[in-house]
């Protein structure tokens, strides 16, 4: 029987759902107040943030289908910040292209709710529900520009491949249910630990299929093929959301599954995850070297980062869980800001996306150039930035569990990545453009850039902001 406590455990999600529905209703007005809709969406995000942080809830709810704690709380704060960022980035972009509509903001909120349920889920059915709510919202958002062929193509590709990968996830969940007799995380975990499941082989195969489903969502090689095309074709503000939201949510949900449910099973799959991690970072980085289009370059950069994070999944210790959560927070903020600047510099008709378009940006808009350089340096993992500490935490966890060669490969890959991350920096600071007219910094980009500075330089300024929260979140899993 449901109680009031059950409802309170999902207050933040309910607030977002009500806001999203309200946005849809506002859109149906005779003269929708389209320039004010973004503020309605942001108000919903702020209310959800206050409910999430201000009224912490612990325990299992809805007959054990949802588990709320420090882990889900910290991750949900990341999702809400990313969702709010996607709303803010959209404003100048949608106005520039005259496509500002309420559905956009509404769908971003629905996607955020899906991500929040993915980390709160304590039952494979809810994990699936959250994953699908996120994916279906994103399919529509990717194809949001109905009159743009590239957007249509990206939307269709994402839909077809996403639906296919959903099949893998469901089939895996079905095998695990068949083998252990439950979809509840604790029950599955008990069945595996006490060896009361039908057959280890069925459980193992089921987990392998789940792994394929997640690999698609977080773009691990060889399931990454869609990523560059989809990120390039999608509206840039959605590329920002797409490269952060599903990746963070996918890794968070996978981390929870690996640690809480399939700790033993993951050990049997270590060879496959090892190869996935090695392939992902190598292919991601080598492909990024060849890209001149910033959106494609950042897409491959996202693939490479998924490879580093997969090392953490492979290790599966408390230390690596901490590393992953910290890494996800840093990666989310820096990638969001990097795409935000790309969206601000992009011109109508999808021009202004090449590296050469960034020539002389240091003189045309010094603030934007400095921020873009900071985001890229953090993604490359230069020492004073948070990106360095993220890599350090994940790699050191891997070394202490004996994955020396994988870490050697990862460090070599990081060196390779410096080349393509520094190309735009060189263009911005050392080359001159034909047209040195100043670039305007959109006002809505400012909060995202502030977030970037706080997170990327956070280790020096607010060391406890991310580190302690990540550690508490990781600790609550074990």
């Amino acid at each position, binding site marked *: 029987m449901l109680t009031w406590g059950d409802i309170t455990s999902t207050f933040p999600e309910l607030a977002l759902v009500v806001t999203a529905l309200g946005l849809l209703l506002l859109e149906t007005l005779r003269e929708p107040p389209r320039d004010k809709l973004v503020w309605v969406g942001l108000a919903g995000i702020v209310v959800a943030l206050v409910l999430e942080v201000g009224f912490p809830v612990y325990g299992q709810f809805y007959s054990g289908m949802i588990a709320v704690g420090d882990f889900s709380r910290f991750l949900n704060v990341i999702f809400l910040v990313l969702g709010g960022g996607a709303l803010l980035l959209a404003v100048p972009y949608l106005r520039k292209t005259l496509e500002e509509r309420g559905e956009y903001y509404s769908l971003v909120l629905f996607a955020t709710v899906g991500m929040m349920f993915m980390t709160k889920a304590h039952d494979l059915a809810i994990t699936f529900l959250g994953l699908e709510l996120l994916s279906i919202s994103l399919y529509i958002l990717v194809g949001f520009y109905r009159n743009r062929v590239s957007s249509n193509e990206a939307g269709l590709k994402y839909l077809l491949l996403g639906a296919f990968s959903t099949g893998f996830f469901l089939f895996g969940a079905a095998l695990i249910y068949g083998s252990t007799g439950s979809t509840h995380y604790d029950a599955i975990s008990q069945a595996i630990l006490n060896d009361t499941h039908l057959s280890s082989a069925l459980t193992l195969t089921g987990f392998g299929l789940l792994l394929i489903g997640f690999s698609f969502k977080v773009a691990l090689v060889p399931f990454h093929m869609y990523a560059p095309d989809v990120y390039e074709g999608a509206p840039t503000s959605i590329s920002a959301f797409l490269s952060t939201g599903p990746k963070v949510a996918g890794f968070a949900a996978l981390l929870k599954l690996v640690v809480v449910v399939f700790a033993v099973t993951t050990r*049997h799959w270590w060879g496959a995850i090892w190869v996935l991690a090695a392939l992902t970072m190598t292919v991601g980085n080598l492909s990024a070297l060849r890209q001149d289009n910033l959106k494609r370059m950042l897409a491959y950069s996202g693939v490479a980062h998924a490879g580093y994070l997969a090392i953490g999944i492979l290790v599966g210790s408390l230390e690596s869980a901490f590393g992953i959560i910290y890494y996800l927070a840093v990666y989310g903020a820096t990638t969001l800001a990097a795409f935000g600047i790309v969206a601000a510099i992009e011109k109508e008709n999808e021009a202004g996306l090449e590296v050469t378009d960034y020539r002389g940006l240091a003189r045309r808009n010094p603030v934007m150039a400095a921020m873009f350089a900071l985001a890229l340096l953090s993604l490359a993992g230069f020492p004073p930035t948070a990106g360095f500490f993220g890599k350090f935490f994940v790699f050191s966890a891997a070394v202490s569990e004996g994955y020396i060669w994988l870490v050697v490969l990862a460090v070599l890959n990081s060196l390779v990545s410096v080349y393509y991350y520094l190309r735009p920096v060189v263009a911005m600071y050392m080359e001159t453009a034909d047209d040195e007219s100043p670039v305007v910094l959109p006002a809505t980009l400012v909060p995202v850039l502030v977030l970037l500075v706080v997170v990327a330089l956070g280790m020096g300024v607010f060391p406890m902001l991310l580190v302690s929260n990540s*550690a*508490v979140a990781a600790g609550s899993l074990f």
Partner: protein
Amino acid sequence: MPECAALNDWPGWGINGSRGWTHGHNIMIVDYLPILFVITLAVGFAVGMLVLSHFVGPRVSDPVKLMPYESGVDPKSESHPRLNVRYFIVGLVFIIFDIEIVFLFPWAVIFRDFITDSSFIFWEMVFFMAVLLVGLIYIWRKGVLEWE
């Protein structure tokens, strides 16, 4: 928010003996037989049907047989006419409300048993219907229900 106590335990984190990857599981290749069986069955069924119909199926072709099948009526136009997009939208809307009914039936069956304890089951469905009502208002205002 608790202090950063977990960080003090760092040296112990890496060594987690209980999660070694042998853990008493000795999986034999024989254990995978059911999965091999399912894969063989799935592939065999698909390929088998194609091969079987290729060899067994009679291949008589006359004008009547090559004609597109339209429930026994002679086709009057192209078999791939351009359909108005409204058909698809109305079809989508129909499916959405059809699925709503699927959720209403089990709810109605257990309603009497639950309503004696609390009115939650009632308000739960009210919220569900309200969400769908928003959808209905949305499609109505966007002109999906208008057929000129």
